[in-house]
């Protein structure tokens, strides 16, 4: 174990979470050209749901990995329902409106959800159980990486591979790509665009919820405001990688996480955000479409 490796691991762990959330931003942007500012809140709701579910399950006498998995499933279902409803309530009625309207609606939704959770739950920080620490790793791995970091990185990797496969090989994936490329043409070819959009929101929300459970368990505390900081960073990651591009969001998340980790480690944590955003500015200057983004002409 050395300093570099530890920083690298920390950066990858953090970056994986950014990437999971960034996928939600980038998928929605790819299809609707909308920045879903309420996405960070979905992540926060996922963490809260998991916390409540885990407390109930633990009270029922369950332990170990079963609590983690069940809590995660409940969080995914709940967050997906939220993501679906947010789209139906806040964005669908504005489908034909100017682009600024759904953006404002998204900001409104974000503020609403934050305050809703604050009033319905609490404004204090809540302790989040160490669900990930209960996982036992083989000694050879445990020497190199903490169980929570291992679980985060592996889960994120598995989810991203699954997502890529779904998008590449399933019918729904094809339909999603088609809608992203040209919504009207897809509609003409008989694709139910509204259903595809709903599914995109559900998938994005599910990923965010898993991110919420993982990070909640990793840092051990949540409150109603965690969605804001994570959302901003994930959005930055999505832009960094090229918004609208799925591999871009993954790469962007990892690059951002590593940059922050190394900036803190080798320079100073005072400059953590300075480095993160300086990197963003540099990339946008030299490659305005992001690392893996396609350059798109403005439609006239």
């Amino acid at each position: 174990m050395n300093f570099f490796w530890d920083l690298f691991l920390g950066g990858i762990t953090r970056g994986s979470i950014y990437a999971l959330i960034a996928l939600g931003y980038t998928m929605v942007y790819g299809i609707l050209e909308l920045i879903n500012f309420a996405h960070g809140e979905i992540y926060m709701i996922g963490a809260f749901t998991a916390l409540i579910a885990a407390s109930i399950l633990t009270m029922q006498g369950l332990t170990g990995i079963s609590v983690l998995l069940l809590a995660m499933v409940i969080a995914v279902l709940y967050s997906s329902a939220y993501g679906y409803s947010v789209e139906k309530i806040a964005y669908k009625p504005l489908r034909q409106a100017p682009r600024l309207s759904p953006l404002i609606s998204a900001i409104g939704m974000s503020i609403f959800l934050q305050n809703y959770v604050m009033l319905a739950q609490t404004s204090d920080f809540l302790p989040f159980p160490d669900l990930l620490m209960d996982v036992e790793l083989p000694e050879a791995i445990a020497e190199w990486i903490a169980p929570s970091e291992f679980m985060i990185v592996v889960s994120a990797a598995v989810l991203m591979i699954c997502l890529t496969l779904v998008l590449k090989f399933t019918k729904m994936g094809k339909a999603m790509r088609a809608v992203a490329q040209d919504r009207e043409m897809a509609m003409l070819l008989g694709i139910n665009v509204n259903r595809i959009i709903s599914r995109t929101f559900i998938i994005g929300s599910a990923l965010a919820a898993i991110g919420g459970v993982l990070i909640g368990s990793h840092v051990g505390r949540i409150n109603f405001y965690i969605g804001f900081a994570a959302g901003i960073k994930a959005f930055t990651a999505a832009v960094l990688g090229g918004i609208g591009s799925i591999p871009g969001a993954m790469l962007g998340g990892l690059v951002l996480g590593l940059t922050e980790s190394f900036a803190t480690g080798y320079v100073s944590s005072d400059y953590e955000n300075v480095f993160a955003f300086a990197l963003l500015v540099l990339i946008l200057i030299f490659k305005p479409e992001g690392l893996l983004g396609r350059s798109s002409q403005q439609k006239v």
Partner: protein
Amino acid sequence: MKNHSILKYFFGLLLSLTFIISTTAQAADTIKIGIAGSHSGDLASYGLPTVRAAQLVVRNINAKGGVNGKRVELVIEDDACKPELATNVATKLVSARVHAVIGHICSGSTKAALRTYKDAKIIVISPSATNPELTMSGQYPNFFRTIAPDDTQARLATNFAMQTLKFTRFAIIHDKGDYGKGFAEYAYKFIKSSGKGQVVLYEGITPGAVDYSAIVQKIKYAKADAVIYGGYHPEAASIVQQMRRKGMKTAFISDDGVKDQTFIKVAGAYAEGVYASGPKDTTRNPLAVAAIAEHRKGYGSEPGAFYLNAYAAVQAVLNAMNKARSTDYNAVAKALRTYQTDTPLGKIKFNKQGDAVGAGFSIYQVRKGAYVELK
């Protein structure tokens, strides 16, 4: 015409009376304590409780036969918390040959007056001047105070870490806010100037960040004995938790932003053993209860600001004169630094710089899920 002459007589009488009083005072060989502070103007409410505290303490002492067999007498002067008036007050008190001064009230006027007292070798004890420089600068060996200066928490925490826990390598982390950064800056200064410790890491973190693993790694690789954290409990909880999960036994020492039950709730078992400074609890001190009751009885009202601090200041200086068996400057100053006085603030004495030890703040430690005051 007639009225005029009566006035003349009156003034004449008054003048001669003052002469009589001062000569008798000289003759009776009393101990004179100057009380300087704001007794008029906007800030009178800060200064008047000190006058009352002094009057009550002196009355009690005189009833018991005074100090070293001498009566204690008060000389009360008003500076209205104005530095330019404060120097005049100081000159007046020096020429009145007071043996010690309780005051001044505001840091600015205290600073202005101190030079005069220092040249005249008069001990000054302020119940309320909190500016750290007054004691820190070392320019005023005659200055003491019974209130904690603005930097107390950092001083307490660093002294505790270096002297009690014998740590030498420190990582100082703060949340970049005024409160946390102020604490961290003082802690840094104290550790540097003590020469006994080494600051191996000094950094600010971003409050509300997703995680703090990188800074925790830095703390680990800096091989710090202890983390001194300036800030509030949410980030502290995260850092402590991540440190403990990495198997680090590094001590965690913080301020009263962390001395909060929420910290223990959030950090759970990881909070165990964390140190934090917090204000000392005086409400259960029987002397404080008695001093407040005395004020109610004597003046029919609740005591105002700095009342207990002033009460303690007068008690401390009289006790020191008693222990030193004289009013000599060097002897009393030494006694103030050597002997403890039982006051409403607790048992206090003064350190080299002149700050009260045993007043103000205490170190607490999380033990079995609750903060316990360390004695």
